[in-house]
């Protein structure tokens, strides 16, 4: 652990472990809100440069650290920079398996959309859906499954939550449960959600006429019926606003949901499923796929 450096705080340090497009969009949104000097640090997956990055950040003495992704959050937890940390794009910030505990000075925006919101949208689009299946890793997604069960119960639908410890098991379970339900729900669980399982779910959804609820717009584009997701730029902008409040000394919740939900819909998939899309619903769509030009 590095000792705190007594120096005048200066600007904000942004730590990212990948230079992927969602991160870039988020940083851009963040910059629009925060008018302070910003230093961006990238972490490699192998950790070979982590020490140099930590030293550099310590010497810089930023007023706040903006962490993008779980690796960056864990990096701040490991170094202890003694400055507030605002994180985004962290799926399970409080997961004990990571070896790091949540710090009081950590503030973040959750990656998941509330299950109730998704199920309600599902019923709006496909009112006949009564049985929903979801395959999940109980070690990572128990809480969201718990929320989902409550939400399903409230909406009068049956949620078949099938736990799987690995991808192979998930594949097998997906193949067995999809013929039995009306909809398949994808959750942000990277144990279950792989490219293979997605293809499998997509294939089976077409085969058994099962509504497939996507996780992001790219899945809707690939064949899912719809997805409620967050927007990377909006997330970054929301984080910037949070930073300005923290630096202003105002009280901020440790984890807040995304301010804006992004609704994408595949019209072609709806057609194959025999669903009618009312105009009022289409007006809510942020981006519509599968529409013939």
């Amino acid at each position: 652990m590095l000792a705190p450096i007594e120096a005048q705080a200066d600007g904000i340090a942004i730590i990212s472990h990948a230079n992927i497009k969602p991160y870039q969009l988020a940083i851009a949104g963040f910059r629009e809100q925060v008018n302070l000097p910003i230093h961006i640090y990238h972490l490699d997956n192998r950790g070979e440069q982590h020490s140099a990055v930590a030293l550099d950040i310590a010497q810089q003495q930023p007023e706040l650290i903006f962490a993008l992704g779980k690796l960056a959050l864990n990096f701040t937890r490991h170094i202890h920079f003694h400055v507030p940390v605002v994180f985004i794009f962290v799926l399970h910030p409080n997961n004990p398996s990571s070896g790091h505990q949540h710090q009081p000075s950590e503030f973040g925006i959750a990656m998941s959309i509330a299950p109730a919101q998704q199920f309600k949208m599902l019923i709006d689009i496909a009112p006949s859906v009564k049985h929903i299946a979801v395959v999940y890793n109980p070690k990572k997604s128990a809480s969201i499954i718990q929320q989902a069960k409550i939400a399903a119960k409230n909406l009068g639908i049956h949620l078949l939550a099938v736990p799987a410890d690995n991808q192979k098991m998930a594949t097998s379970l997906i193949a067995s449960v999809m013929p039995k339900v009306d909809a398949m729900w994808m959750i942000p669980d990277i144990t279950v959600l792989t490219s293979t399982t997605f293809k499998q779910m997509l294939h089976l959804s077409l085969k058994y006429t099962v509504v497939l609820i996507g996780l992001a717009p790219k899945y809707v584009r690939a064949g899912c019926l719809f997805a409620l997701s967050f927007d990377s730029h909006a997330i970054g902008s929301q984080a910037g606003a949070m930073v300005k409040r923290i630096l202003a000394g105002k009280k901020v919740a440790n984890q807040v949901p995304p301010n804006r939900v992004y609704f994408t819909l595949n019209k072609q998939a709806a057609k194959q499923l025999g669903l009618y899309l009312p105009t009022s619903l289409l007006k809510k769509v942020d981006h519509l796929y599968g529409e013939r030009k």
Partner: protein
Amino acid sequence: MKQLFYSLRSRIFLSVTTLVILLSLIFGWISIVQQTSSLELELIERGEITARHLSYGVEIGILTGDENGLHALLNKLLKEKDVLYAGIFDAKGQNIATSETSKLLKKHADTSNTLMLKSGQPLSELWVKNLWKQRDIYEFHMPVINEIHGSGESMLFDGEGDMQQQVIGYIHVILSGASIQHATQQTIINGIRTFFIVFLLALFAAWWLARALTRPLAYMVSVIEKTQNGDFNQRIQLHGQNEMTQLAMAFNHMLEELAKRNGKLHEQQRTMQLILDTAPVGIWMLGLDRRMIFMNKAFSTAVGISEQAFLNAKHYTELFPQIVSLQATQSDNQCFTMNAMIHSQEHIPCSDSKVHIFDVVKAPLRNNQGDMIGLVGIAIDATSRLQADAEKEQMQKQVEHTQRLESLGVLAGGIAHDFNNILTSIMGNAAMAERKLKGVSAEGAAYLSKIVLSSEKAALLCKQMLAYSGKGHFIIKPLNLSSMIESVTSLLGVSIHSTIELKYHLADQLPNIEADEAQLQQVIMNLVINASDAIGEHSGVVTITSGMMYADTAYLAQTVVQSELPLNAGDYVYLEVSDTGCGMSQEVQQHLFEPFFTTKFTGRGLGMSAVQGIIRGHQGAMNVYSELGHGTTFKVLFPASHQTLDHHAEPTPLSEGKWQPSGTVLVVDDEEMIREVASLMLEDIGFNVIEAVDGQEGIEIYRQYQDQIVAVLLDMTMPRLDGESCFGELKHINPDVKVILSSGYNKQDVTNRFDGAGLAGFVQKPYNLNELEKSLRLACTTQV
């Protein structure tokens, strides 16, 4: 057979059939190729789709390692059409699943390895096909692509950059091309069947088309052939609205026009033929071969050779005598050689067995290009014209001759008139001198008597000249010719040689003729003396014949001496004087009546001229028949008169003893010597005389002394006022005036002009004292 092959129907039939066969073969071949290509493309497309579907279908199986599912999928695929084999390989080329292999594939294809394995490299493209047409199989290789939506946490985020593709395996599909071969063979078989059907249909269609096209043509040809034979009433009867019907309508219209034109042409030909036939000229045409191609009827009739004979003849010698043929051939050659119009005159024997003279024009006959294609000949019978020209020339000569003779007559009359005036003076003066010398000088009186005698001969000569000129002293009265001949017999006897015998054949019952007695005597005397002179001193016979004959106009027309007026046919009394003398040559006969022409040494050449003038003056005619060495016959004709002999004697003057001349006589004459001698003679008779130089002066004097003037001796021809006008004025002054005309012209001619005007007398110049006294006595003692 050759003609049949080259006929339009055969050509159409063969062309259509060949065309249909060729088109059938071409389209059949194209159809087979296209169908084969289409089937092959379809098979390839089907193989591609099959491979593509299979690649999608096996993606999950490969990802999930579901080998049983993959096997089931392949076996199910194998049941599809043309699929021989299907295999699935992982990304490293290891076989995951394989369908059962058919026998055909085992025989031809190696399925143990894929193309990827042979090359040792992964497929660089999304899918690859490999076609082995030689083995009639089609191979398709298709990579199985797994589209990766991310990994780890990136699966949770949106973003296109996260999308990746990964080859997770390959599929290998082999399709059989047997269906293409089978379809192609079936197509060929069907094509051959279709071809034969089409060929048969084509044969029928070609036959029908050829027949449909050529039948109207054949029909039209038959109509045209009839038209060629001159039948323009033929019409093509076609129904419908096609081009053939339009052609037929056009042809019918053309036929109508041709019929009209042909009719007009025939009409023109008939008209032309009529013109050519009725033209009073010969018209013919010769071809370049010198054969006659046309001859008109007029010439054919004229020469008495049929038109057909002309057309059949190869040469003129077949139609005409040698010389005529030669002449015609030469003019033909000249026309052909010169290529120009030529004129000639050819003598051609005609149907009247006479040789006619034709004016012939031969002109080149040319076609539209101006090339000579023959000649046209026109012959005009010039015989009549030439004869008329000759006669006209003869007539002209005769007229000229007559005019010359008339001129001579006028000249002779004028001379005789003047001579009479002179002789009047001579004879008057001589008579006066003789009277004065009577009993004084017998010798002087004898000389004067000779002067008077010579003057009387001169007066006789003047009389003959006047007779020739038709202005002799004619006193026309009915006379009997035979009696006249008999009355001059004594005179004739002394006028001819004693060796000549005079014979008379005088008709007893002859009609009278109206003639001047003295002149008739002169005619008889002249003819008889000429006859006597023709015999000369030889012995011979002069025969005088009289009689009556009927003379028609033809006879009268051929007489040598005719009156100026045309003579009428009728009864004529004739005098014929024949001799057995030397006769006259033609030349002598031509100049027989010319004045002053004589064959006699001492002749004056006025005898026959006087005879001619006398005959003309009596509206008579005369013929001359003379042959050298065989004598001459003159036949003189006088119109027979129905008047009887005039026995009324002229008013007889008072006897000499009872008449006592007294009073004044006005002598009106422009000739001074006449006035003088007349005055002498009148004074000698016992009259007083007043002279006037012309008619005008005579009137003035008469008006002044009419109480004294008992008679007027008036000349006829005077200046200022002639005798006739003067006579009228005198009569106007005094209707009872006694006027005695005095003229050198004949009395008849003069008195006719004063007929009924109260002329008291006429005295012919030259007159002597006795004649003047006789006239005055007659005038003064006779009531007019």
